[in-house]
């Protein structure tokens, strides 16, 4: 063979990298690396999709913001917003009253809604029967360019000419566009900090574990490659040479994994996709608009994989040793001691007197600490069990016991990595389930009360409930409904007076006093006791008098219906909203509160994810 025909050093290194180094087959390693690369690519693409989605939302939100002006003379329209409910979810109702009909309407509408006309987002229009007619005459749907997401619930309503609203309830606006910051629509529930929070949670929950998978895959069955790297090092190879040999061994897996991971983005580029479990629809248009985010994510994944898989060997080989790093045989005693300490702290939380503010913090701190050190403590325990099993295997002639026992005894780091996902997974699932399933006493009482009432008593609030408007409301409701006026105390002083005709009071098992008379505790049927317990103060009186006020207006109304044939909340909302106007609020007397556990769930899960990484031992 002539000198010219000899392969170059680079060619030799690339060929060397593709040869098998012992241990698992090259195919198995390629599969593992492909899985890890695909996971990394898909996870980074997910990050790009999140960024693109929020970017699209912000853009549309900015374009529909009202430009509020100080002087009504400069205004082209009046703009007002009111929250309402349909089913379990809150939504925004935006009232519009154009001054200059030639001015552009808000994004998503072709023209301004006429007085009493309603445009609904598709998600709100499909909520249930009656919603389309609740605010007026249904005129169509809001276009996608006017909605933050396809699932947003929003209504644009042309202000009815006779609507009763307080002074200053509507704002004079000069059009729509940045830099407004008025929160409405989905912005009610998704605060401006949501994007940062979402990305932070995604980084901790998904990107970091994917990074862990990446590192573990890079070191998968690495003993043979470590020996080869050590040999190359002894022969004078530099980082570049090690990198070439390493890259050659994993290039097919990087290409296959990147392609596989990239395929995950295809559905979201082609059509709107619903995120499973939370029913959020990701808009394909947002993702397509920021396509270069995806391209960058794929490039970063491929380059990271190439550098990571190859560099992890190159760097290790530079340590100047010709032997692979020996595995650690023992778990540090202090880790076991700390696990025991934190376990005791966790258990001690159950001994703290009920109602103490320290219970949950002590439990959380103890649990996080115990979780952090549980894998190491378990590995130490398993090493001890393994030694005993190997000893017994020797005595009884069981080779399986000897081999498995010795592996457990001398590979505590491997065991710690093996049991860490199990420990974190089981504890996280159990804690999540407990906190999601548990309720505060108040929320349970509210739910049980609402279940017993079955909407036979509902509270109604609205601006300027004069006698005429109360009578209009009474006429609009079905015949079996009765109205009771609730004149709440002024700024917490004075009694709350419940006023209704004698027939209504008697149907509630109450007396019929002509003057305000205190209600004895436990008097009346469940509708009265609920109103008293949840809506009124301690000083409650009843009076036999028509619900419409003789003069002025009523603070609140209660809509009562027979318990055997009650009205429904949606029915009353849909009936009263057109009568009482934009400020109408209809709700159950005992509104469900959100459990504190649900409210704190994200912090809990975040803490667990951080702990997962604290207790994740370095690969080796």
């Amino acid at each position, binding site marked *: 063979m002539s000198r010219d025909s000899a392969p170059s050093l680079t060619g030799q290194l690339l060929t060397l990298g593709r040869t098998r180094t012992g241990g698992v087959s090259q195919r198995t390693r390629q599969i*593992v690396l492909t899985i890890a690369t695909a996971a990394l690519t898909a996870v980074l693409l997910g990050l790009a999709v999140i960024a693109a989605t929020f970017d699209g939302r912000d853009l549309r939100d900015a374009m529909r913001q009202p430009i509020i002006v100080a002087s009504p003379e400069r205004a082209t329209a009046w703009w007002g917003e009111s929250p309402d409910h349909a089913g379990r979810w809150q939504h925004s109702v935006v009232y519009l009253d154009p001054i200059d009909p030639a001015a552009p309407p808000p994004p998503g509408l072709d023209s301004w809604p006429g007085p009493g006309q309603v445009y609904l987002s598709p998600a709100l229009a499909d909520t249930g029967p009656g919603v389309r007619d609740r605010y007026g005459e249904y005129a169509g749907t809001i276009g996608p360019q006017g909605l933050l997401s396809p699932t947003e619930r929003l209504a644009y309503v042309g202000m009815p000419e006779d609507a009763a609203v307080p002074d200053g309830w509507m704002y004079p606006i000069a059009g729509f566009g940045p830099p407004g910051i008025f929160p409405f629509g989905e912005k009610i529930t998704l605060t401006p900090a949501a994007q940062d929070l979402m990305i932070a949670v995604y980084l901790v929950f998904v990107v970091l*574990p994917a990074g862990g998978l990446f590192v573990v895959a890079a070191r998968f069955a690495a003993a043979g490659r470590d020996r080869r790297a050590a040999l190359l090092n002894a022969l004078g190879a530099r980082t570049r040479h090690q990198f070439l040999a390493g890259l050659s061994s994993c290039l097919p897996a990087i290409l296959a994994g990147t392609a596989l991971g990239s395929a995950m983005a295809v559905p979201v580029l082609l059509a709107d996709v619903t995120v499973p479990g939370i029913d959020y629809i990701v808009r394909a248009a947002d993702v397509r608009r920021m396509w270069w985010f995806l391209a960058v994510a794929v490039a970063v994944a491929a380059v990271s994989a190439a550098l990571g898989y190859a560099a992890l060997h190159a760097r290790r080989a530079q340590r100047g040793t010709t032997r692979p790093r020996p595995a650690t045989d023992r778990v540090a005693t202090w880790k076991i001691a700390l696990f025991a300490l934190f376990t005791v702290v966790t258990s001690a939380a159950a001994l703290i007197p009920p109602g103490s503010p320290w*219970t949950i913090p002590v439990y959380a701190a103890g649990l996080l600490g115990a979780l952090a050190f549980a894998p190491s403590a378990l590995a130490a325990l398993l090493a001890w069990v393994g030694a005993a099993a190997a000893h017994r295997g020797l005595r009884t002639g069981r080779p399986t016991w000897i*081999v498995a026992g010795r592996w457990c005894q001398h590979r505590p780091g491997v065991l710690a990595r093996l049991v*860490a996902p199990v420990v974190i997974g089981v504890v996280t699932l159990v804690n999540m389930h407990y*906190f999601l399933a*548990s309720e505060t006493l108040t929320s349970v009482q509210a739910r049980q009360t609402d279940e017993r009432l079955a909407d036979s008593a509902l509270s109604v609030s609205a601006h300027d409930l004069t006698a005429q408007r109360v009578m209009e409301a009474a006429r609009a409701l079905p015949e079996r409904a009765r109205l009771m006026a609730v004149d709440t105390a002024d700024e917490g002083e004075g009694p709350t007076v419940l006023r209704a005709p004698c027939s209504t009071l008697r149907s509630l098992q109450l007396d019929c006093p002509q003057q305000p008379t205190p209600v004895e505790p436990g008097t009346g049927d469940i509708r009265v006791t609920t109103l008293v317990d949840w809506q009124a103060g301690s000083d409650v009186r009843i009076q036999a008098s028509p619900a419409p006020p003789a003069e002025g207006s009523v603070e609140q109304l209660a809509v009562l219906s027979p318990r055997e044939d009650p009205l429904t909340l949606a029915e009353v909302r849909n009936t009263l909203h057109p009568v009482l106007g934009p400020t109408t609020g209809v709700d159950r007397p005992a509104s469900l509160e959100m459990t504190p556990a649900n409210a704190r*769930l994200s912090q809990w899960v975040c803490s667990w994810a951080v702990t997962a990484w604290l207790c994740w031992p370095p690969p080796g």
Partner: protein
Amino acid sequence: MGVLLGGYGLALLATAGLISAGGHIAEAARSTAPLSVLTGRSRWHLGIALGFLTAPMALAAILSAALSLPLGTVIQQNRQVPAAPPDTLAAITLGALALALAAGLAAGTASARTAATWRPGRW
């Protein structure tokens, strides 16, 4: 959302843990392959995988469930409302035990198949 992303993260962690353990099981299989071929007892591999994979994972699941037990008492004391039923804890633990058994069986079977192709000097 946190639950959803946490689920993804746990799945990735579990995959990483299984790959890591699988690599070491493969090393164990390499060591014992000549012996199992010579003696014709491929069940060794299953026993080793059950001892090195299933037993630690099962023990971890049981101890983790025990670690979560005080939570039920804490919640009941502070909210005075029955929390999650105990069978939820049992279901989660049984699920983890099933996963551990499946991992051990899969690794043992794969090791036995690999050992069946052993020939001198190859490894």
